[in-house]
């Protein structure tokens, strides 16, 4: 699947940069230089970037300009990186946020 807008009636033809590859959750995806992680994944049909830390419900981008932090992923071991603001680098390792333990929540209602 390639959802890139190659021809645009007003903006003209897509001026794609050098082609790169990166990994997301262990799968290799193509990207072009100058593309954000979020855009490159969406171009390959991937919408889910993480799951809610507690409920496990899937999440993708919301604002796409760095305001909402819905798109946070781990990049080369660094957590809480915004996928909508971060350009893909060749060989980058990206992993989705996962469900985290909530030890304080379980039975956490005190009398």
């Amino acid at each position: 699947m390639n959802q890139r807008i190659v021809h645009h009636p007003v903006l003209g033809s897509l001026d794609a940069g050098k082609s790169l590859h990166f990994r997301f959750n262990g799968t290799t995806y193509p990207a072009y230089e100058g593309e954000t992680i979020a855009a490159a994944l969406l171009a390959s049909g991937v919408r889910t970037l993480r799951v809610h830390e507690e409920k496990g419900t899937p999440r993708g981008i919301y604002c796409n300009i760095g305001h909402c932090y819905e798109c946070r992923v781990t990049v080369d071991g660094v957590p809480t990186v915004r996928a909508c603001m971060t350009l893909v680098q060749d060989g980058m390792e990206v992993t989705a946020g996962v469900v985290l333990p909530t030890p304080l929540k379980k039975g956490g209602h005190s009398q």
Partner: protein
Amino acid sequence: MIDALIIGAGPAGLSAAIACAKQGLSVRIVDEFYRAGGRLLGQLHQEPNGTWWNGMEEAARLDREARAAGVEIACGVSVFNVVPSSSGWIASTTEGEIETSLLLIATGASETAVPVPGWTLPGVMSIGAAQVMTNVQRVRVGERGVIIGVNILSVAIARELQLAGIQIDRMILPPVSTVTGKAGFPEAVMRSLLRVAHLAPSPLIRWGSQLMKSSWMQRLGVSLYPSQGFSMWDIPIQLRTAALEIVGTNQVEGVRIARVAPDGQPIPGSEQIIPADFVCIAGGLSPLAELAAIAGCPFAYVPSLGGHVPIHNDRMQTPLPGLFVAGNITGVESAKVAMAQGIVAGLSMADAHGALADSAELENAIRQVGIVRQRATIQFHPDIDEGRATVGQLALASTGK
């Protein structure tokens, strides 16, 4: 230490940088996005005379001009704190602290979220997200989508998505709730649309909007609208239909909608689910003013400017020494107004630095803001002038300037 630090490389920040660098100040801009231009990058509108406003080109021009004037532009740098120092301001950024004698905050606007049930599903995004993905990143947000929220921004962006070959199934209202406020009332939405009717390509809508300028006509218009609504650029706009819920398991699969009465309440028995692979939510814009608040700047709540705005005078000075604001942070208006305000802020900073060669230039720039405002194609609110006047009076009261 640099003379001027500008936070935000949107049209306001870049224009300010050019203006004050040309007066000889050393200027640096930081922006957390990966390229300069701000929200200008995604903008693509057809002007009434038929030419296109291509934000990407405008942004590139401003970026070139700023660099040519000697401005240092650092992208991918977020500012998270600003504090006054003995000689100006210190900004804390993801790349360390920056000291400056003058500080301009030009952080723009953010979109107001509308939490429609199901809005956290992947495939649901703000209307601005779809604009950036389509026009800047050149990736299709989906095949066929629904836009929830009918306002000037969402109507303009619907057209932009269509240009990129993305199908908009329809535009509908959000459900009426305490958070959606007027955006869920057909009449209020109708009234606000009338203000942008001059953008409509169809003479029919232009005529219709003239006919419906009186309020009883508007009520009639809303109640007589066929449930199919009307179309702009063949995109159905249905003011008598609201989204009740976005449905899907792992991502958006559709939207549960219902016809609504003129007061926005769903009509029993009219529910249906329409398929969609993406949904855009348009809740309007408000000034992104947190940094000015952290700095200690006094604020005013002015609904016609989009919400809480830092108090400032017509020279874009806040009551805090050395702190300036420009662009959408001072009230939500179009990019051309932001540029005009940026020039004022830049010259005003040069003046504060004692480097403004000709003070008439600043006076002219201030007048120019008013002229650009009058001519703006896109107006986010009808009472902008009043809102601006309110802030001006508050500035006068707080500083005597």
